[in-house]
């Protein structure tokens, strides 16, 4: 994963709440076995509706509970492939938030009125190290898990980080191996 630090640029606005991942990337595109090339299908059905305008900018500002529904990581893949580096919203669905952080697409939670101000300004700058967002006429700070922030700033590979705990995992398995089901032993 490439490190995330400063993200600056124009803001695309999608002023809707509860945008589900079925809208972000409809199911017919989940049949692909690759990780790339999803951007052209972003908001596939909505993009055909009159008045739709979502320029390819570094920042997307949107409504509450963004990314709800299906766990498909194809949704962040599509947003990133389209050109977005950060999404600003009053809240995110849990799985979507996590999925974004795994690929270095920065989810930023701001208060509703702050998101509205960013939408109005049309341009913003996000500093992950400072946990700050600034725009013409305003600025705000955002919360992020410190460990998550460290990984994003350094672009660390999650599996690599976890494998540093390999001994702890080995020990856990040895000491507390459950009688639980062994999938490979079913006839």
């Amino acid at each position, binding site marked *: 994963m490439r490190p995330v630090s400063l993200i600056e640029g124009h803001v695309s606005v999608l002023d809707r709440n509860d945008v589900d991942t079925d809208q972000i990337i409809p*199911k017919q595109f989940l049949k692909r076995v690759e*990780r790339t090339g999803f951007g052209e299908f972003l908001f596939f059905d909505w993009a055909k509706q009159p008045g739709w305008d979502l320029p390819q900018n570094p920042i997307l500002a949107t409504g509450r509970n963004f990314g709800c529904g299906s766990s498909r990581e194809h949704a962040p893949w599509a947003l990133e492939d389209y050109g977005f580096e950060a999404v600003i919203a009053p809240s995110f669905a849990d799985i979507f938030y*996590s999925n974004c952080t795994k690929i270095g697409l920065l989810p930023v939670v701001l208060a509703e009125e702050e998101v509205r101000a960013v939408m109005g300004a049309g341009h913003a700058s996000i500093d992950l190290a400072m946990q700050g967002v600034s725009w013409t006429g305003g600025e705000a700070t955002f919360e992020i898990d410190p460990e998550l922030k460290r990984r994003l700033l350094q672009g660390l590979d999650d599996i690599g980080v*976890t494998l540093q705990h390999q001994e702890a995992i080995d020990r856990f398995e040895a000491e507390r191996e459950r*009688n*639980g*089901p062994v999938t490979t032993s079913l006839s």
Partner: protein
Amino acid sequence: MPESMFDKIWDEHEVAESLLYVDLHLVHEVTSPQAFESLRLADRRLRRPDRTLATADHNVPTDGSTAAEQIRDKLSRVQVETLERNCEEFGVPVYSLGSRRQGIVHVIGPEMGITQPGMTIVCGDSHTSTHGAFGALAFGIGTSEVEHVLATQTLQQRKPRSMLIRYEGELGYGVTAKDLILATIGQIGVDGGVGHVLEYAGPAIEGLSMEGRMTVCNMTIEAGGRAGIIAPDDTTFEWVEGREAAPDPLPLDGWRTLRTDEGASFDRVVTVDASAISPQVTWGTTPGMVVGVTGAVPEPAGDGDQRALEYMALEPGTPMSEIRLDRVFIGSCTNSRIGDLREAAELVKGRRVASSVNAMVVPGSQEVKAQAEREGLDEVFRAAGFDWRSAGCSMCLGMNPDIAAPGERVASTSNRNFEGRQGRGARSHLVSPKMAAAAAIEGHFVDIREWE
């Protein structure tokens, strides 16, 4: 200090801070190919194939095809074949098309007895919350996390907050688990559970069958919840006992200690009056846009509601019972188990599907299908004019040939009424199996409590 069931399972599985051990990893064809590919590229091994299990469900046609090579859609075929190849290469047991165990991943896990109380279970699928019905901590993950679990058998995870949903009173006649969870989502909202693990408790929950509890936990994600969980009890133990992968004897002493201790604290407590819940029907494009069947399409409360009404082609004030249907779908990981099919069959027995309606029943697994056929339910459905299909996700998400046409209105026992979910331009109304069955016969929604 008194602990919640969630606390107990979490503590038991935390290998290091915020690193959770995974007891069971379920895999399906849609969210896994990129994970296996990355594993291969990094030359990493799959740590515990014996705690991993795969099936093909999202893409499979429900026409009785018995091998991936029979799938006509090329992309779907490649995806199922890729799953089979990946599982073979990494030593993961896979129940693909043609296997007697094939079915929707959240149906076959419990059915085989591999879903057990006290476990941690993940899958690259948001409806993994289903398995919480057994007192397991189960939730959906993305593809990068699938790869992480394949490689390490753990998941990096900050501990979510906890929420208790306490139901007061009992469910009334004709009111089901599906109505209970739809009404709950309507009450707390589609983001009401974000960041929380939801424990469902109270007499209305204790009175549910395992199928009903799975329906409730399944839709936790539609309230934004990270996971849903229900205390295991005798109903649970009886259901698990004797299943293929179940321990013999059951470790009941351990399982009985899982339940939330008296006096345990939760970050949030919500009370729901179960006795006030009526059969529910969604009117909009989120599962929280829901009313009782005796109600009417509401006045829009904002832009989102207005957009939903336009998409659904509904006028405020229209009684729900006057909404006419083109299709009825009984199936999905929410409502395709044998108990669901029995409930629906009981209502359609000796009746005919309305001539204007195209109705289908899709068992959740080959085992459910076989069981239903042993009981003659397939004949009941067929005689009434239902299409009796083979196991898969089917019209819940339209990744396979079972798709509703643009503008068609569907009464569906599935979990999502999102725009285009069941087919581009299709209009979905979420209901219980009983409500779907009655709607198929009448061609519109009816209050099954008064339906003769």
